[in-house]
């Protein structure tokens, strides 16, 4: 297939997402095959001479808990802002999205946002209590809870403050995808449907809200509408097959799919069923937004539709012109992703990206589109739409709704500038 025969679908070198599936893209393959020199002394030859050291030595023993390859040492969470020592218990750890693929975040690399440090809770001394407007207040030991029927869901968690840099900073911050978008991760969560436990207590007629509390130092608590807990909330014990990490709420956490991460209360130990919200500290301050009309908006639970191109992305360098696969992640707290469009010419023209299955509601969805970079400077953008027709706004549109210094719930389109020397940088268009 000659270049002229390939199907370009939009400006800037975007190639029809189906062309790879059909004929392949031929212009790269020709250069990658090297001739092999014939050996002179065939008789005394040891085949090992032609093999790398790891093919000529016995490998090492396994370990009791697998670790990433020694060559992947760079794969790390990153502390969001090195904070003052006085604030050391209040931290955000960012996931290196641009170094991962697929939709599942490895457990050790799940982002973490901690307001009161990370407790090490003894599961034998941890109970779940449900009381308030119920007929029978109940407590559950861990041992008992683990006997309940479990459900499994792949769901993302995103911190309300993800991408705060782009919301706040008047000039675009030159950060990596991890720096700018790393407060989102996606896992398979296994646990008990919260409705099951709540219903066993005999919910009162006036029950409408539940104050959910963790067992960490600050007893983190949020007021949650009962309807959400009865709908799709999970009391989760397992993450990607193993018990939760301490950073993620061991021995158990609440999971509220699609809602701001702060409401998925870690170390959950108490559900108080009530008729009205408590306006806890985090209902009131940090997790509210200033609107441009002067109002303060709280209980803004849903994480709206959003996407980001992870490859190529901020701080990366394209070594040469030619073929690249543009790929990234899209998600919506309202449901499934229905469409992701990509532009490779500053947003002038757009083409649909391939969505890779499984496409799951309130989970990350991987998208990709083949791209031929001609070595000229350009801007890459992605724009997601969900099954409810919600589409990502531009940055200007988003800013119009909120007053500075609001930084929560930023979901505007991300644009990456590609310079003619291949440097990728965050820009506002």
């Amino acid at each position, binding site marked *: 297939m000659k270049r002229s025969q390939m199907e370009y679908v939009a400006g800037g070198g975007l190639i029809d997402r189906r062309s790879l599936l059909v004929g392949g893209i031929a212009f790269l393959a020709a250069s990658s095959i090297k001739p092999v020199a014939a050996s002179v002394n065939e008789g005394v030859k040891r085949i090992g001479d032609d093999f790398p050291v790891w093919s000529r030595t016995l490998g090492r023993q396994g370990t009791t808990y697998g670790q990433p390859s020694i060559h992947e040492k760079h794969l790390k969470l990153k502390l969001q802002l090195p904070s003052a020592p006085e604030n050391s218990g209040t931290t955000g750890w960012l996931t290196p999205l641009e170094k991962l693929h697929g939709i599942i975040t490895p457990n050790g690399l799940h982002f973490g946002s901690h307001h009161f440090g990370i407790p090490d809770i003894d599961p034998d001394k941890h109970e779940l209590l449900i009381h308030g407007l119920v007929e029978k207040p109940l407590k559950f030991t861990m041992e*008992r809870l683990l006997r309940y029927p479990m459900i499994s869901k792949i769901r993302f968690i995103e911190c309300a403050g993800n991408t705060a840099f782009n919301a706040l900073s008047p000039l675009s911050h030159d950060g990596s995808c991890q720096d700018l978008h790393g407060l989102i991760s996606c896992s398979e969560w296994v646990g008990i449907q919260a409705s099951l436990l709540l219903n066993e207590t005999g919910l009162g007629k006036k029950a409408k809200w539940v104050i959910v509390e963790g067992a960490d130092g600050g007893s983190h608590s949020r007021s949650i509408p009962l309807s959400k807990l009865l709908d799709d909330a999970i009391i989760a014990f397992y993450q990607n097959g193993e018990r939760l990490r301490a950073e993620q709420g061991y021995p158990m956490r609440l999971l509220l799919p699609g809602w701001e991460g702060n409401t998925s209360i870690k170390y959950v130990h108490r559900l108080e069923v009530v008729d009205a919200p408590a306006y806890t500290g985090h209902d009131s301050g940090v997790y509210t937004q200033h609107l441009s009309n002067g109002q303060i908006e709280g209980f803004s639970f849903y994480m709206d539709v959003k996407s980001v191109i992870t490859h190529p992305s901020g701080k990366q360098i394209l070594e040469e012109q030619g073929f690249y696969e543009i790929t990234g992640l899209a998600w919506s707290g309202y449901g499934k992703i229905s469409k992701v469009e990509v532009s490779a010419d500053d947003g002038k023209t757009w083409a649909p990206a391939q969505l890779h299955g499984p496409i799951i509601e309130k989970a990350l969805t991987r998208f990709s589109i083949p791209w031929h970079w001609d070595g000229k400077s350009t801007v890459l953008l992605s724009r997601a739409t969900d099954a409810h027709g919600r589409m990502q706004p531009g940055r200007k549109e988003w800013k119009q709704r909120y007053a500075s210094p609001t930084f929560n719930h930023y979901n505007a389109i991300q644009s990456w500038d590609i310079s003619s020397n291949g440097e990728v940088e965050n820009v506002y268009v």
Partner: protein
Amino acid sequence: MAKLKMFMYKVFKWGLSVIGLTVSITGITGEVSVNLGSPLTESEISRVSITIFPNGHNLPKGQGSVKEGEKLYVELCSACHGESGTEGPSNRLTGSIGLFSFMDPLRIMRIQEVNGLLVMSTGQQWPYATSIFDFVRRAMPHYKPKSLTNNETYSLTAYILYLNDLVNKDAVIDRKNLPGVEMPAFKRYVRAWKNKSAADDFIPRP
């Protein structure tokens, strides 16, 4: 065949509900009752029930003064929240550097001047004064949460309210008058989450 099965199943389910069997079958209906919880007694509840509500529900007995609060604040809080509650490095407790508009020529300077935690404050953002008592008692001081007595918490709450010009220097705060303190954010606070009957779970200030 499938229809017959469904019918049998419905009868079976109906039967269960008539006899009042609590253990039904997992995975078929989603309606499972396992009942492995144990009863929770009133005294167990009252020991851990620390949430305070805007109408004053669950506020404990006791009281505290601005004067007492000031002493405690200097000793236990100012290292992180600043002498006047504005300097940080931890969250600002009073005042703000203001909301700045997109058109504000000083916006860049003002954003760069402070870290995000010091732009707005407890006094400017929280709609109810009761939440301050709740939060301080459960979470502060940050390095030693839940170490304050109820009276100390009332005093510190009173002092934070005083720093925000919401009570005077001689004020004494208790469970009767705390819910009545009107926070400036109360009028500006709106809920993004709306129930069908949102009106009746919005809490008017007493």
